[in-house]
């Protein structure tokens, strides 16, 4: 059974805002990336998983239990980092960690103490109000992880962290993943998702536009090569070959060829008959994939919001 399941979730805030027929499942021990720009509906979806919002249509489930009306049960194993962190007032960092852990019945704060070390959050004894953005983010991370929950719902967890600390956080996520945690990671940061997630869904204007396995991005069964010819006119000659061209640029005397791994030898044989200036591989990154969906496709909703 899926640990987190979102089924045909619709929440219409009007004016094209909201989420529309969003569905996905996250299995036990899986790390799922939720990618999309601001206002795409990531946080709205998460609100339903935590039981803050009532769906117009569809449902969110945690381990088979519908969330709405049962958040006191479904939130039991959840650790949550809100997209925008506003801590309760008048608390010192360590008191906040203790207080929030108490709701989950956690007495042991070893994990929190360890995380204070890892994230280098000094003076957690200080007043939360006076903390910088980065410190608050670190504290938010610790609060979510402190009671050692089985499920982590992380809404842009590393925003406000410096690049080094982002790497530290990525390592932390890998550790949690190795410990068998189920993680929903909503993020803008491609490298973070690339390094940790097994599956990714891209959400745009409230709809999931594509879902894929990270392996297909990292290790696709085909590769794309850019070939620049040394001898003029070669681009015309190769255009006659039976190849999957992504681009043929005669002006620059250059082509981009998509080739399946099993056909690579044939391509090399073919290219040996040409005078070549250089060959380079164009690596497909998550970012390219993301941009493809964001720039190419016109929106369904006429670009509201």
């Amino acid at each position, binding site marked *: 059974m899926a640990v987190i399941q979102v089924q045909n979730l619709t929440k219409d805030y009007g004016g094209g805002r909201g989420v529309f027929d969003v569905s996905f499942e996250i299995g036990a021990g899986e790390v799922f990336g939720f990618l999309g720009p601001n206002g795409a509906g990531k946080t709205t979806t998460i*609100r339903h998983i935590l039981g803050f919002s009532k769906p117009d249509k569809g449902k969110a489930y945690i381990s088979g239990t519908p969330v709405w009306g049962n958040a006191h049960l479904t939130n039991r194993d959840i650790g949550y980092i*809100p997209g925008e962190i*506003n*801590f309760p007032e008048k608390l010192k960092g360590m008191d906040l960690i203790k207080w929030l852990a108490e*709701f989950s019945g956690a007495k042991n704060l070893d994990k929190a103490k360890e995380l204070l070390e890892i994230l280098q959050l000094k003076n957690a004894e200080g007043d939360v109000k006076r903390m910088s953005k980065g410190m608050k983010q670190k504290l938010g991370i610790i609060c979510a992880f402190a009671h050692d929950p089985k499920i982590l719902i992380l809404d842009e967890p590393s925003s406000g962290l410096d690049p080094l600390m982002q790497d530290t956080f990525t390592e932390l996520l890998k550790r949690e993943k190795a410990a068998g945690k189920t993680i929903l990671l909503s993020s803008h940061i491609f490298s973070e998702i690339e390094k940790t997630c097994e599956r990714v869904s891209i959400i745009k204007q409230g709809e999931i536009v594509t879902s894929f396995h990270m392996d297909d991005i990292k290790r696709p069964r085909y590769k794309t090569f850019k070939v620049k010819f040394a001898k003029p006119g070669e681009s015309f000659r190769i255009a006659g070959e039976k190849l999957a061209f992504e681009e043929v640029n005669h002006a620059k005397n250059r082509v981009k060829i998509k080739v399946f791994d099993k056909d690579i030898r044939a391509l090399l044989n073919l290219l040996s008959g040409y005078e070549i200036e250089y060959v380079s591989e164009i690596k497909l990154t998550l970012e390219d994939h993301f941009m493809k969906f964001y720039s190419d496709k016109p929106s369904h909703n006429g670009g509201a919001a």
Partner: protein
Amino acid sequence: MFSNTLFKKTLKDNYKFWLFVTLGLSVMLLILMMAANSFAGRMSERPGGSEGAGAFGANMILEQFYTMFAMLLPLIYIVITANKLIAAQVDRGSLSFVMAKPLKRNQVSMTQGLFLSGSIVAMFSVVTLVGLAFIGATGLDIEIGAFLLLNLGIVLFHLAISGISYLASCVFNLSSKSLLIGAGIPVFFFIANLLSNFSSLAEIMGYFKYASLNTLYNTADILAYSGNMIWQFLILFAVAAGCYAAGVMYFKRKDLPL
């Protein structure tokens, strides 16, 4: 239907303001009672001074206290605290940390509601005890029964007022709206009640008494042990219970923009 952990924090966040208002009320009552005591003393020293003069002065001072200070000071505490307990935390977004925990909605709303109503009861329990202690120590000519009823009535009145502020805090997601309604209505009641006193100037002013809950806390009726007091108290209690229950029910079903 209650969360100890949440209550601890709520208590910590709000006890100072409560203490300030409670002490303020107690001190004011003491000062007024001391004044009544010295007035009664002078009256009895006067040759031919009537027996009832001391009691009359004491009652006037009690009416003054319970229609002004005991009305207004707790009102400020109530509207600010009621907003802080829920709406302000939704507005700020800080409630997300609590709502992401395995708590029922009712647990959150009822814990906060119990704090608000309980703090009002506690506030006037302190005031009542201070008053009783003074009466006991000085023998001030105040009927204990009437004094207790005045306090019971003001508690019921403030429970009704706090019910309105609490309901507004449960319903609205913005502090501004919660305060507009949760403070606006009680303040309107207070002003309407003041205006209704001017019925001798224009008849229409008299109708304002129907637009105010304050009219239901009638110190003259209470001091005279009038039977009106019973239905007045019952209505205040019903308003309080209705508003708190409506707040809890609304909060259970609402969308939280956290």
